[in-house]
């Protein structure tokens, strides 16, 4: 008896120390001995869940399928009120930085300071057609479905952990019974939701528990909302979140609610809900951060940076805020300030290749030449993925271009292409360099490759159009320039050539 008690305590300690795998092993042994040991069962369940627990507030991969859904409130929203429509696209916004100064992501948004879910791959908000057209590169613009790899993995995880079938036979659970036991029910729910990935059963359990609690328990209301959310039933989900907020305002709930509104494409409503949350939790960085992200998505950089600054006031080690502010300063021609922020990141121990590479870039633009090479070398040493190496070599090539060392630039771009053969920017620059050296044919071939790899960039089109214009093939030039203007409507140089071509065509 004593030994059993002792091992239980040890077990709890293991769980507290987050050594889940050992914890699972020990509890499995205990359960083999006495199958009705509720403590061991609960512990094992929680340990399994914790291994796979994800923060639901950070999860939302919009898939290709979402382009087809009709949940968006307006099909033709007003400018600045939607993430979907091209109206929220920098070309028409006043606040957005010009694409000539700040590069774009595949979906037509200015590049952010930090790679996170939904910055690269989402909402870009063009038509389905556009999304389907987006080039298939190794890092494609958008996952095909929402049921991303992660969920699938979660689903099978339960099978893997125990060779003789899942730990809990979901079908045989007596849900109403468990629902009455609050202590067990919550853990069981999380297990079903995260580990077994059986949203429907989890939802049933939550509904039973909620009935038992008579709508008075905010936690169960939120869980029901989460289930609906996962099942893409946004209006039901919204209802439950709001009910839950009436019972007990919680930060997470506000974040979930904002997520729902974003999926319904009502970013302004999401912001107002988050503000409401801020009134109750006035020092909550997560809420401010969420607002900042939404503003960023709407291309309202000034607002976004304001909010990120607020985040930093509340939590001065927030990596995302630091990175975004740094990137913004960098693209606003203030590399020195940006350098300070990146240095801060480095001091905090974020030594990724990206940070080092950015520091090198800032050093270059702030003319602190002694640091550049060291930083790039370090970045290359730290880089783990080929894509990272490609980016670093690309940036080195860029430096070489600015010091007009053409040979070095060409070598660097080639290296970038070795690591990532879909690097459209490198192709574009290679093309330009070749044209500069008056290898027009090769240069144009590179530019065309860049066009096909990155239909979101106007530069290859413009460069191609201009090259063709100089050569005199006005038809190809006209086509390319038109595409360039489609992507970036206010590009004055493209517009100039376009007008001239138009005039030539119109003359009799």
């Amino acid at each position, binding site marked *: 008896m004593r030994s059993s008690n002792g091992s239980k305590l040890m077990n709890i300690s293991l769980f507290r120390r987050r050594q889940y795998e050992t914890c699972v092993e020990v509890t499995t042994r205990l359960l083999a001995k006495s199958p009705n040991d509720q403590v061991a069962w609960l512990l094992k369940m929680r340990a399994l869940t914790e291994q796979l627990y994800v923060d639901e507030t950070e999860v939302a991969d919009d898939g290709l399928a979402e382009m087809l859904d009709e949940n968006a409130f307006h099909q033709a929203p007003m400018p600045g009120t939607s993430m979907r429509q091209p109206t929220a696209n920098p070309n028409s916004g006043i606040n957005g930085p010009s694409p000539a100064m700040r590069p774009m992501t595949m979906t037509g948004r200015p590049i952010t300071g930090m790679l996170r879910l939904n910055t690269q791959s989402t909402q870009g908000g063009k038509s389905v057609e556009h999304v389907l057209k987006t080039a298939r590169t190794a890092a494609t613009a958008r996952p095909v479905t929402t049921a991303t790899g992660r969920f699938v993995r979660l689903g099978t995880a339960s099978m893997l952990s125990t060779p003789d079938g899942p730990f809990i036979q979901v079908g045989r659970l007596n849900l109403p019974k468990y629902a009455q036991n609050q202590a067990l029910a919550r853990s069981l729910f999380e297990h079903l939701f995260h580990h077994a990935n059986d949203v429907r059963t989890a939802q049933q359990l939550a509904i039973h528990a909620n009935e038992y609690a008579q709508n008075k328990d905010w936690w169960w209301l939120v869980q029901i909302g989460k289930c609906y959310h996962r099942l893409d039933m946004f209006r039901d989900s919204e209802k439950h979140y709001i009910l839950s907020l009436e019972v007990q305002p919680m930060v997470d709930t506000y974040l979930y609610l904002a997520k729902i509104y974003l999926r319904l494409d009502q970013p302004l409503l999401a912001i107002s809900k988050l503000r409401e949350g801020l009134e109750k939790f006035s020092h909550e960085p997560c809420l401010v951060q969420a607002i900042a992200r939404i503003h960023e998505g709407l291309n309202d950089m000034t607002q976004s940076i304001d909010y990120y600054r607020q985040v930093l006031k509340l939590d001065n080690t927030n990596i995302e805020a630091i990175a975004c502010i740094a990137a913004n300063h960098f693209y606003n021609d203030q590399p020195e300030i940006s350098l300070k922020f990146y240095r801060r990141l480095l001091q905090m121990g974020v030594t990724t290749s990206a*940070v080092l590479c950015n520091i090198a870039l800032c050093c270059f633009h702030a003319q602190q030449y002694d640091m550049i090479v060291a930083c790039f070398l370090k970045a290359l040493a730290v880089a783990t993925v080929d894509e990272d190496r490609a980016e670093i070599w690309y*940036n080195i090539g860029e430096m070489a271009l600015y010091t007009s*060392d053409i040979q070095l630039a060409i070598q660097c771009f080639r290296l970038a292409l070795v690591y990532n053969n879909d690097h459209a920017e490198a192709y574009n620059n290679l093309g*330009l360099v070749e*044209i500069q050296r008056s290898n027009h044919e090769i240069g144009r071939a590179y530019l065309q490759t860049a066009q096909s790899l990155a239909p979101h960039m106007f530069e290859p089109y413009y460069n191609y159009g201009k090259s063709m214009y100089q050569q005199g093939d006005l*038809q190809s030039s006209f086509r390319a320039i038109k595409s360039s203007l489609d992507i970036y409507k206010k590009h004055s*140089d493209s517009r100039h050539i376009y007008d001239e071509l138009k005039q030539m065509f119109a003359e009799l």
Partner: protein
Amino acid sequence: METPTNAVPPSILKPSARSIATSKWPNDPSTIDKYNWLLHVMYGRGEYDRIQQFIRVQPQTNPYMTYVQALVNRQEGRIAEALDLFQKSVVENPTLVNIKQVAKSLALLGRYRVAIDAYKEALTRTTNDWEVFHNLGLCYMQLREFNEAKQYFLQALQVSEIQEASYIALGKVLLLEGERDEAEAIFERGARRNPESPTLFTHIGLLAFERAHYTKAFECFGTALTFCPTHIPAIMAACQVIQKHGDADVALSKYRIIYGRKPECAQVWNNIGMCFFSKKKFVAAVSCLKRANYLAPFELYVLYNLALVHLYLQQNASAAIFLQSAIRINRKHAPSYALLGVALSKLNDSDNAERAYAYSLKLDSADPMTLLNYGIFQANTGVSPAKINSTMQQFHRCYAERAAAAANPRDIDASMLDVATKLGYPAPPPAPPSDLPTEKLSFPSGLPPPPAFPFSTNSNRPADDSASNVPPPPPPSASSTLSPSDSTKDDDPTKQSPPDEPEVKTKIYDANRHKLRRMKQEPT
């Protein structure tokens, strides 16, 4: 021919009902050509989709339809298809108009030789068509056969005296051949016939600007702007003149107009940066120039100006690096080498500085500023006085030549003479004032004379090299010095920036490649 005619009452402009009307006599010419007026009106109004639709539903086509369809195709940028259709109409009906259209389409596709043949074919049918001559000229110009081109342009002008386009093209050909005087004469002639053409006046102004006739240039730009207040090349050029006069504030306000229309133009940013520099707002200047460099990394003058500003800010290493880049772009750019000499001498690398000066003088031995800086450098490094003397002699000679050549006293910077005097080599030629030196050169005897601070301007012709050589600001480590005279030249006038070649076509390929620098992002 397709000017919009709005006189037709709108009620009969609805083709939908009539278009389907098939006639009883399909080959009756009156029915075939019945709707030509409608096509004409629709083309004039730019309703290209409707034209296409209309033609598609017609039971048979007539030559005019083919012609209009071809025009529509060309308008929408499908020149190859347009060419096919025009060729079809030539086969059906080889008139002058059709042949000209075929030729024009060929020219637009860049097949100039074939286009020339087609135009020559057209010439067999007429001898006094201005357009044929003009376009022939253009084709030859593209093929860089300037003599032929000139001939045809002149013929075109004989046929029709008033065509602005021919004057401009002819002037450009002459400019390409380097005959400025003739080009100017042509532009002037054109301007007399077309007194309201902003382009012609801008060209005249630019030519005048190059010869440093600033008043005339400014007048021309003014005329151009009266007729077209938003003619960007004219504004740019006018700003240039204003800047040259040292009126940076006015120039800045003008640049704001251009910025609104061309926010990504490196030249504008460069000029704005130099405006700020002459206003002594260095941070703004550097940041504008940096942006210009970001937008156009291969622009020599942006790099040169950046180096200049950094030299002024005592950031010599940065300046040297920018100069290196500039030199890589153009290995024959003498002022860059001269400036590199200054930067290197400040970095205490006197061997290489010496070499840079020597190379610069080899490339352009008549630049007084380079000579002056070289003299100062020699004085600083303690070269034998004889050598310094010969350098300074040469300086005074070149300076005198330059001063004689310059029409406007502003063009040449008299402060260079002051510096030379301070160095101990006052201007000799007129009356060697043998005994001036007693006015103690501002350098305390022990210290080496302060290095000069060259401010060269850089317009791309040596002509306006009016450098304002700011006399020595504090010598590197000399405690004493004072700013004896450095203040004077504050107005480093006219750091001219690359004379914004307003014809964008000739602009070097400054495209946007670089903007794609992507900051990498870090995954959490």
